[in-house]
């Protein structure tokens, strides 16, 4: 059993949060409020000493007055808090949106459009190998059918009828498999986190499991 006070606090707070599974209760609410308060306090201090001070204040103190521009933009953002001059915050927001859009435009095109189109073009031959299920040709063909039929499903300028409709129907099947995969992975992820907490309770805190 742990002798560290921090571990004990974490253990009790874990149980307090888990108590919500039974029903909403004051212990859960207290733990939730503690979490929110500590997070807000922690991040405020962290961001000041790791971002604002080294990246802004220190540079201004060194006489690098270019940093007055982000300082002014930052102060303009705070105008949001005052309803009468709230419109001023649109200027720094426009600056941030413009920079982000410009930065991401070509990068997204390269990684998610051109890169993915290149990746989707695969050779459909090569059906050899140990057995059919291990042949690359089979999986490449399936992937190609999946890409084409899913794209057809999202083509709404033509009514989904006849061969076009059937292809879109195959697309739905692939989309469903995708959703199933996502759901399965999400369940796996959440269970993993629960296991981590259980391990903390039974091993780190109580010292019962090895």
């Amino acid at each position, binding site marked *: 059993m742990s002798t560290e006070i921090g571990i004990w606090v974490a253990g009790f707070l874990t149980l307090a949060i888990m108590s919500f*599974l*039974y029903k909403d209760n004051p212990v859960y609410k207290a733990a939730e409020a503690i979490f929110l308060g500590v997070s807000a306090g922690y*991040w405020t201090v*962290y961001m000041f000493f*790791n*971002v604002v001070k080294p*990246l802004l204040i220190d540079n201004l103190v060194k006489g690098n007055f270019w940093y007055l521009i982000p300082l002014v933009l930052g102060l303009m953002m705070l105008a949001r808090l005052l309803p009468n001059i709230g419109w001023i915050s649109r200027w720094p927001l426009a600056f941030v949106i413009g920079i982000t859009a410009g*930065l*991401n435009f070509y*990068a*997204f095109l*390269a*990684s*998610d459009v051109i*890169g*993915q189109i*290149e*990746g*989707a073009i695969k050779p459909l031959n090569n059906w050899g190998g140990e057995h059919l299920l291990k042949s690359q040709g089979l999986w490449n063909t399936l*992937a190609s059918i999946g890409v084409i039929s899913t794209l057809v499903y999202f083509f709404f300028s033509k009514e989904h009828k006849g061969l076009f409709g059937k292809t879109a129907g195959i697309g739905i099947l692939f989309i469903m498999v*995708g959703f199933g*995969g*996502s759901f399965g*992975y*999400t*369940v*796996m*992820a959440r*269970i*993993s*986190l*629960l*296991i*981590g*907490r*259980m*391990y903390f*309770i*039974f*091993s780190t805190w109580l010292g*019962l*499991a*090895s």
Partner: protein
Amino acid sequence: MEKFFEKLLNIDRKIIFLLIALSTSVPLFYFYPQKIIANKASRKYNDAINKLEEKTKKGEEVVVLISGEYDPGTVPELSPMARATIKKLLDMKVKIIIMGLVPMGPPLLMEEFNELLKEPKYSDVKYGIDYVNLGYTVGNAVVIKGMVKNIKDKYPVDVMGTDLNELPLMRKVKNFDNIDMIVNFSSMGGGVKTWIQFAKKTTEESMDIVFGCTGVMVPESYPYLNSGQIQGLLGGLKGAADYESLIKEPKNATKYIFAQSIAHVIIMLFIIIGNIAFFVTRKKRV
């Protein structure tokens, strides 16, 4: 029979919670060495890391940048794979640079790193020579974009405030041209996509990027693996257990995966029973 299934459909959810709690906790008391069959994505991750060994064996200096973009909430999934990867890199005598685009990333990676450094065989691993911790800096894509040309532009000092010019490793590593591989552990939105977009060159000689992520992020990450934009992928706890088994270092992920399997069996049983009960009682409801 119908009444039985009706009761099942209206089962108190607290019973399900209890069964899941038992299935995720009881197996932790019994370490059952489950046979782990690594999937293709994990094998590719292992192959990409092993490829670095060819260089180290020739006596070439290999530098790997590890970026941690996760927080304590996803430690059970990501820390085991981070630990296994750092261990493998240390065994291969690879130089390591730690950084993060999320504040908690570098401290969590260093927790695993420092734990490993307690082992006597790593007693000769020295800070500044064999590894460096750059810490966190704000800016995401802008940070990566800046580091591609000059790391010191974005990180003039390390996490302790030491000038990078005073660290022997960082005197040799000027920019991403001097880095052989990027390992990204992420639980955050952008994930490895930001690294692909801003760190990877479009040319063939670009450095490899491998990715370890939470289970939730796996489906959206597979396209980057299939298109060759990343060279390996460890997905969630299963990916971590895969890698531990591939490097023959069973630790926490291997321990957790047994509980995970039991919990999955319970969930599958509930899905199957729920569906049977739904179809059996359907006529009555219509």
